[in-house]
């Protein structure tokens, strides 16, 4: 049992693992995910990620349920991104009137050259006023035509003007369109009325649009406006129902899923190995207590108990991990470990060690466990996906860690908000794809390891 021979064996085993194509693919995917995790942890610190994931305020200028940008490939046309035009840095024209009042006029221009209509348009005001402040809003089309949209009285200094769900405006635009092209054979929504080309077929009129605000300000009043024309696509991963960029959750899900799966599988495997060894080594009362414990564990319903624990106690991911480990260590694997240990106990080298007075602890840790560890490693790696999906399943049931963004939580959000029925494919498929990528990589490595460890499987 010299050290060098041991290391050589290990090196050979590694070499053999690398000779399997499936293992190589698994390792490549795994490395990719590890790099992604490291990148995530460095670029988005956890507190920041949690804050970003839990506050809906900061995302108000993101589109709701926007698809990822690359989805355009499937549509074959340029889909609108979100356009934000702010009055900051743009000088509004102000003409003095009598008694200190000023006539205020501000035009915000933006280019629109996408091939679909935006889903939503909101104007964010930022103002200070002493009395009522009423604003007239005009729309300027690329062909120069100007449409008076509406008169809006601010209800508070940071009021918002939602153009999209304004039924009066919709009716007005419908009449306008009818006067231009006759009865349209499509419904005229606010966005279509504003951005369409006046022709019988529904098409976007590309070009430079403007939105003009006119008002009369009292002395000391200020008015700023920001127009947000929401897009249909957003970033690499799209957004969810709370306008959050999914990429944050997807990125952070990676280290969480991997470390959770690995921690659960390693701790469960090692602890149950130790328990099995103790059972086989000492025998007697200890053995029978442990055997009874595995029998009790076999009829303890694992998932329902976990659900019971997570509902009755406020718990985070570490308590979940701990409960999973505790409920798994007295598994059936203990029986086979125990039998193995009973055989090893009578091996000559153990007897020799006993003869020179080695303690039980030393014997177990240095001579028994290293002997029975190798066959367990493949099973350990293969059990990682199960734990990764278990965490996802708990999150899917709404039982995960209350703060962390995880893949399971995104799937849960998507599912409960009808992504399956409304066709928000990306919302479910992105986290599912990552879950699958992560678990399949471990499975590929596990299966290859199993072949190298189990000589009977080698030729098959």
């Amino acid at each position, binding site marked *: 049992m010299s050290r060098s021979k041991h290391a050589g064996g290990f090196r050979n085993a590694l070499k053999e693992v690398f000779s399997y194509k499936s293992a190589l693919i698994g390792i490549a995917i795994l490395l990719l995910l590890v790099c992604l995790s490291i990148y995530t942890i460095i670029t988005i610190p956890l507190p920041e990620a949690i804050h970003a994931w839990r506050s809906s305020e900061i995302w108000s200028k993101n589109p709701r349920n926007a698809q990822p940008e690359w989805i355009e490939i499937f549509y074959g046309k340029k889909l609108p991104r979100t356009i934000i035009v702010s009055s900051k840095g743009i000088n509004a024209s102000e003409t003095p009137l009598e008694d200190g009042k000023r006539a205020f006029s501000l035009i915000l221009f933006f280019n629109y050259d996408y091939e679909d209509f935006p889903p939503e348009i909101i104007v964010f005001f930022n103002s200070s006023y002493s009395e009522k402040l009423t604003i007239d809003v005009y729309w300027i089309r690329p062909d120069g035509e100007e449409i008076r949209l509406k008169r809006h009285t601010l209800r508070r200094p940071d009021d918002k003007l939602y153009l999209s769900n304004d039924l009066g405006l919709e009716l007005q635009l419908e009449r306008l369109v009818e006067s231009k092209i006759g009865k349209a054979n499509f419904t005229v929504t606010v966005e279509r009325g504003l951005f369409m080309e006046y022709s019988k077929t529904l098409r976007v009129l590309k070009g430079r649009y403007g939105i003009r605000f006119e008002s009369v300000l009292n002395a000391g009043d200020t008015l700023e406006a920001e127009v947000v024309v929401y897009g249909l696509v957003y970033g690499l991963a799209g957004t969810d129902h709370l306008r959050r960029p999914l990429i944050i959750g997807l990125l952070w899900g990676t280290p969480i899923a991997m470390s959770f799966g690995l921690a659960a599988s390693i701790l469960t495997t090692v602890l149950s190995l130790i328990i099995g060894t103790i059972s086989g080594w000492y025998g007697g009362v200890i053995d029978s207590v442990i055997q009874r414990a595995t029998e009790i564990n076999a009829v303890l319903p694992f*998932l329902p108990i976990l659900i019971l624990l997570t509902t*009755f106690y406020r718990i985070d991911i570490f308590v979940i991990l701990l409960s999973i480990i505790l409920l798994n260590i007295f598994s059936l694997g203990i029986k086979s470990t125990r039998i193995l240990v009973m055989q090893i106990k009578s091996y000559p080298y153990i007897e020799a060690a006993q003869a020179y007075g080695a303690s039980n602890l030393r014997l177990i840790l240095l001579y028994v466990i290293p002997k029975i560890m190798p066959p367990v490693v493949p099973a350990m790696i293969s059990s990682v996906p199960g734990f990764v999906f278990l965490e996802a399943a708990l999150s899917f049931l709404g039982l995960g860690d209350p703060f962390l963004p995880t893949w399971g939580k995104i799937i849960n959000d998507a599912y409960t908000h009808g992504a399956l029925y409304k066709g928000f*494919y990306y919302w479910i498929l992105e986290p599912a794809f990552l879950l699958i990528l992560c678990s399949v990589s471990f499975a590929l490595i596990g299966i290859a390891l199993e072949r190298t460890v189990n000589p009977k499987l080698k030729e098959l």
Partner: protein
Amino acid sequence: MLPKGFLKFIVRRSLVLLTSLIIAVYISIMLANFGGLIDEMVKADLLTTITMNIRNNPAYAGLTASEKQKIIDTLYQSALEAKGLNTPFPIRSLYYLKDSLTLDLGKALYLTSDSGSKQVRLIIMEKLPQTIMLFTTVTIINFFLNLLGGLILARRYGSKIDRIVSWLAPTSVIPGWVYGIFLILVFYTWLHILPPGGMVDYPPPKDPFLYFLSVLRHMILPMLSWIISGLFLGLYSNRTFFLIFSTEDYVEVARAKGLPPSQVDSRYVLRPTLPSIITGFSLAIIGSWSGAIITETVFDWPGLGKLLAQALSLPDPPVIVGEVVIYAWLLTLTVLILDVVYAFLDPRIKVWGG
């Protein structure tokens, strides 16, 4: 006629399992009551029952509110005593244990059974057949599918299909509920040919045959999700297992004798591997109980798992505790039945002690 040793074995196993069940349920009760939750549940249940009785009793109608309250208090105290609820927890917990083991699971806070009862036992028992109908069926289908497929692949070892199956084996780490989501996306959202969830069309068809067909249609996707999830690894591991056994000398001899492959398979490969196969099957059945929880939620299938998810979202603690107890019972019964089957198949156990 069953040998005496066999009966003795079954009695012994039943006793061991029953003890395990009692301890498992007791552990569950302890876990649930760390925060005093079961106490509160039972007490709240008692108090509402008594209050409702007094309020609705015309004999007390003439009393003032404070007088009524007094009566309620005395009745409540005596009820606590009668139920042993004012005893210290170690003793009290034994009362709970007895109630749980006899499936006296108390009343739900919000959920009701389809027949309108608030009894947790009735609510759960109403859902049990649906879970068995779907998941036990699909586990059995999977078992035979993988067994036969494994035998066929072992015979065609090294062929193209064998290699494809080996390559696809890692896809089985993806659990059924994830495949379920994909299947809903494809067959409902995209193709619109199968229902996304539920057990029967709404409104349910009156004609029993049409009703049956409707249920069958709703069963396709959840079953398919489990079949796909279990298929490739199941085929692969069965095939590998059979291959290892078919290199044994006695199988070679049988082949050399010129026995047809089907006979070699059934007599010399399948027979000695049966105990391990049964173990695999029992693990699958046991796994199906908890796997069903999430799959039922995805497919909105009205079984035990969906009920648990509902109880969880409300939350309805008595139902959650009740479900834990029912699952413990189910596990115990499953283990017992499979032990019996195992003993029946394994001659060493049958002869042992007889």
